[in-house]
């Protein structure tokens, strides 16, 4: 537990992604099975011990620590696991004995609700405060060390010098503690056999289109949908939904899991049906409310039903189709989609453009809320992981711009910790008040950042914790992909991907845009 505890502590305080990767890779290389497998499962929040929950830990603490002192401490610390770790009495030097991560996992998973408190107490009694923190985080979840499944897989690839795409595929196929994956990583065994397992295939990704045009006889055009990219996999009688990073999100969309009953693997865009659009896809904001849930209420299922607009077929009836050209896969896809439940799955249409100008016109005229632009896919390209030059392009709708006034600024993270680099900006309403419409922290050069940082420091009129309110005098030209109506914001608007295009020192704040102008852009 000592090594695992030290790893967690380093990860908590490290903000650099590369350092995190190096720390995890080092841990994986130097820790034996099955500890390293359990550890990585704990870091990525894939462990669950039904018998060990917060309430149980609080009750257990009450047997060792005064309840009132626990309550006061919990209030100060703000986290049950950390409070309990700090309050649990230290072991006497002679009873201190490091337990392995796997021993803890074995004991906790074997425990029933009745004997879990005793089992946990037995483990806590042997550990120091850092070890107790690691144990309780492992048992309760909520690690909060900023390690996604994707990062963990990259760390594995880095540790054993294997392609991350191969790691992606085997990762979800093998349950923790992943011993066969480590054996393969260390060259002691062949790659695990994935037959009958609904495993994740790394996505094929697109480059932004930079050329003026492409030849439409080589490339097919499809709409680029503003939802979330998903892969639905059926194998061995089980259906799983994976998101971009290979994270499993099946639990958030039970209706899709239930509806997908074909032995196939599809790639598509997950969208939510919106009323305002007459049953078409709703804006990304609506979809966001369904993301990240572990359980979904009936109300939510009824109000925001999810569906998938399918655009690729990666496997069918046990055959891997990824080596086939897009054109071939497309034929099979068109024949396949009617086999799926129509209410939950439809086909993403190929845009039947006469020529490039026609496509450009259609792209410019697309007013559908869920259209982000156009995808261009090389007709003869196989489905390959990652971004490969010349195969897929995304041609986003031209971004929108608005002149806004800086209202608040906040310091950044990491390298930018000493700079006011996050800016909230607003536009004028009819009453002549500024209302915030968005927040941006990119789009400027290092030189411009220095200038902006100075501006904030010299024009601060109020401070709210880490936030500074500035004099409303600086106009920022902001560029954003789209803008949507939103009840959560006072201005009634929410921007997608806003960033700073230009600092308009020449423009008086009164001449910045009105809210009404932005409302007219909303989709």
């Amino acid at each position, binding site marked *: 537990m000592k090594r695992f505890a030290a790893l967690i502590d380093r990860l908590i305080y490290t903000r650099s992604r590369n350092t995190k990767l190096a720390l995890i890779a080092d841990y994986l290389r130097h820790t034996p099975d099955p500890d390293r497998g359990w550890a990585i499962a704990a870091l990525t929040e894939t462990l669950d011990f039904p018998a060990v929950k917060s309430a149980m830990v609080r009750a257990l603490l009450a047997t060792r620590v005064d309840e009132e*002192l626990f309550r006061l401490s919990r209030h100060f610390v703000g986290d049950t696991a950390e409070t309990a770790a700090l309050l649990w009495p230290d072991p006497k030097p002679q009873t201190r004995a490091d337990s392995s991560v796997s021993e803890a996992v074995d004991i906790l998973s074997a425990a029933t609700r009745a004997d879990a408190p005793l089992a946990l107490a037995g483990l806590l009694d042997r550990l120091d405060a850092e070890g107790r923190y690691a144990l309780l985080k492992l048992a309760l979840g909520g690690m909060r060390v900023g390690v996604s499944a994707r990062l963990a897989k990259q760390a594995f690839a880095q540790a054993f010098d294997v392609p991350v795409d191969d790691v992606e595929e085997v990762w979800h196929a093998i349950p923790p503690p992943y011993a066969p994956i480590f054996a393969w990583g260390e060259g002691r065994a062949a790659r695990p056999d994935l037959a009958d397992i609904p495993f994740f295939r790394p996505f094929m990704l697109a480059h932004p289109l930079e050329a003026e045009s492409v030849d439409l006889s080589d490339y097919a055009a499809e709409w680029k949908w503003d939802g979330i990219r998903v892969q639905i996999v059926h194998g061995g009688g089980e259906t799983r939904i994976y998101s971009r990073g290979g994270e499993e999100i099946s639990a958030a969309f039970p209706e899709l899991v239930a509806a997908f009953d074909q032995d196939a693997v599809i790639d598509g865009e997950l969208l939510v049906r919106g009323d305002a659009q007459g049953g078409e896809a709703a804006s990304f904001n609506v979809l966001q409310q369904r993301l990240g849930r572990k359980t979904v209420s009936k109300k939510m299922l009824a109000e925001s039903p999810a569906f998938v607009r399918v655009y690729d077929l990666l496997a069918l009836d046990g055959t891997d189709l990824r080596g086939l050209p897009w054109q071939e896969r497309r034929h099979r896809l068109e024949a396949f989609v009617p086999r799926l439940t129509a209410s939950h799955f439809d086909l993403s249409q190929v845009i039947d453009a006469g020529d490039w100008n026609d496509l450009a016109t259609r792209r410019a005229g697309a007013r559908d809320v869920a259209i982000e632009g156009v995808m261009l896919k090389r007709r003869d390209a196989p489905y390959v992981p990652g971004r490969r030059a010349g195969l897929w392009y995304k041609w986003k709708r031209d971004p929108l711009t608005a002149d806004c006034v800086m209202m608040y600024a906040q*310091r950044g993270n990491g390298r930018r910790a000493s700079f006011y680099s996050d800016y909230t900006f607003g536009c004028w309403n009819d009453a002549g008040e500024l209302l915030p419409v968005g927040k941006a922290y990119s789009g400027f050069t290092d030189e411009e950042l220095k200038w902006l940082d100075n501006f904030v420091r010299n024009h601060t009129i109020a401070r709210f914790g880490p936030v500074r309110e500035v004099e409303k005098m600086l106009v920022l030209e902001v560029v954003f992909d789209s803008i949507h109506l939103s009840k959560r914001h006072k201005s009634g608007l929410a921007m997608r991907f806003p960033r700073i295009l230009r600092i308009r020192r020449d423009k008086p704040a009164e001449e910045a845009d009105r809210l009404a102008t932005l409302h007219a852009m909303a989709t």
Partner: protein
Amino acid sequence: MVRAKTTSWIEPHPQGLYVRPADLWIDPSQPVERAVVTHGHADHARSGHASVFATPETLAIMALRYGVDAGASHNAAFAYRDGFERGGVRFTFHPAGHVLGSAQIAMDHAGERIVVTGDYKRRPDPTCAPFEVVPCDIFVTEATFGLPVFRHPPTADEVAKLIAAVRAEPERCILVGAYALGKAQRVIAELRAAGWDAPIFIHGALERMCALYVEHGVELGELRLVGETEKDAMRGQIVLAPPSALNDRWSRRLPDPVTAMASGWMRVRQRARQRMVELPLVISDHADWDELTATIAEVNPKESWITHGSEEGLLRWCELNQRKARALHLVGRDLEEEA
């Protein structure tokens, strides 16, 4: 000592403790005629008092910080175990182990003894005299870390962590946030004790206080100013600055610093994260929970008065241990940065 009735000669007010027979305040937060000052931190030592009674070191610190005239006849300096009498109250200064010159104030009057600790700690500190247990009837104690989650690890372990971190990344420097009075000098002295004999680089705001410590016989070794040093010369080195400078523009002159912070608050991970600290060092000049409770048990007063910090936690401990206690709710005692 004869058991006196509940005392009425010392009065807690939000702005400090008033000793009525002597017409004198202890650590008042506003200017008064006569002030006894326990130590030089800004939440205890304020400028503007007509007369200050303190240890020579505290007066020297107040002279440096507020321009108090340490040698003037209206101020008076007392060595440890020395003191004065006024209005039938005998005042004696005893070491508190908090920072250079820090003192507990023992007061004897009408057969009763009251001890005011100011801020204190119990573990060894190479920069100041160790806390002295003074038996008394009423023990007026701080409670900055008055919750059982606060248990400071051995200082040597934390210093070893700092040295290991700087050796692990010789291309970077470690920037340690440490309060300018007390913590900074203690961290330096502890580094020296652990064998770190390279120059230590300091922020300009620490310079004069470090010099004052050296004048009072505390060995700090070679110190250099960051402002007078090339960036590359600080690679693989330790830099000290006040906590407010950690994420400020000043830090841009350092070679890719790892941000560290020396404070008892670093015990709580989310606190350290909020401060964007990468290397938390649990080094405090305040008593931790075990020190607070052990001190009350050792002093064994008839009653404990708790001045500032997590009063509720320490009150609860007193209740559980059948010890009489009350909270005083003094204002302005919240030097978060200094703990």
